[in-house]
């Protein structure tokens, strides 16, 4: 399914961003945004594992590579919106906040959450990615042939 006609594309994007964010950074941005809603747990934060899979030869049959820690949480806001979170690591606060954000993004407060929380998170993630790519690019080899042997 292409991104344009995937009705869940936007939600996937923000859930993925939250899953990969640093727990400390998310907590800081969230507290600063001061938009914590009234909510109830449908599923209190729970730490577990997910089996990460790879493919033999990168393209063949799937195999189990090993697990990673994941924390999940589900909440419902007083208005009825339901938010889910599956986030990397073992930080329960991170999962709780991510579930609240997922729920809020389905309400009228979406634009406010996007500006106060998701946009700064995205910027941090992009900067980190760009910095690492720039360091890698600096170690790219420029070949030049000195002497070409004849035998």
């Amino acid at each position, binding site marked *: 399914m292409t991104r344009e006609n995937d009705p869940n594309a936007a939600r996937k994007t923000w859930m993925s961003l939250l899953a990969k964010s640093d727990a400390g950074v998310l907590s800081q941005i969230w507290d600063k945004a001061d938009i914590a809603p009234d909510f109830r747990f*449908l*599923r*209190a934060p*729970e730490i577990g594992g997910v089996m990460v899979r790879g493919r033999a030869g990168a393209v063949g049959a799937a195999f189990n590579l090993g697990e990673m820690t994941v924390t999940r949480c*589900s909440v*419902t806001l007083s208005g009825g919106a*339901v938010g889910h979170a599956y986030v990397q690591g073992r930080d329960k606060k991170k999962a709780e906040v991510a579930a609240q954000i997922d729920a809020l993004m389905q309400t009228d407060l979406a634009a406010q959450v996007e500006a106060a929380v998701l946009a700064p998170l995205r910027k941090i993630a992009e900067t980190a990615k760009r910095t690492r790519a720039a360091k890698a690019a600096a170690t790219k080899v420029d070949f030049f042939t000195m002497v070409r042997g004849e035998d």
Partner: protein
Amino acid sequence: MQAAILEGGFVEAPIDSARAFRQIMTAMAQPGTINEVTGALPPAPLSIAAGVVLLTMCDPETPVFLTPKFDTDEVRAWITFHTGAPFTAANNAAFAVGAWGDLPLNEFSIGSSEYPDRSATLIVETDHLSVTGATLRGPGIKDTATLSLPDAQAFQNNALLFPLGLDFIFTCQSDLAALPRTTKVS
């Protein structure tokens, strides 16, 4: 997704499921005793006891079979959210839920001689569960016990398959009793 469907799970999953596991294990270990369980509020027509068993025993690696009466969107959504268990046909099921007459007994896995544990456990929803009825003998029973069973011949046939065979959990509201393959029914 409606929040209501997603409620009714364990509030304190580690504690609630440990307690429920103990009850289910006791029921299995002492056929003919009835145990009350709590902690689940599943959507109808699932009973509380069937809900507790599903929450305690099922996860993404235990395929579940539902008979048509129990195969509703609400039941599916509830099991999916709280356990992650996939749904399957009877022959691939680790657990099944249904009324006695609706469960296709001959289709479930009875395990293999290398792995007798790779068999199905059937959660049989009943309107009535009491310690009167068929006579039970076998491991976990001092002399004899009695239990209201929906059939006798089927359980006798099942016991003959030992060490292979099916295991049964009978549920009625918040009560449950069990009949493992080791029990002789007469």
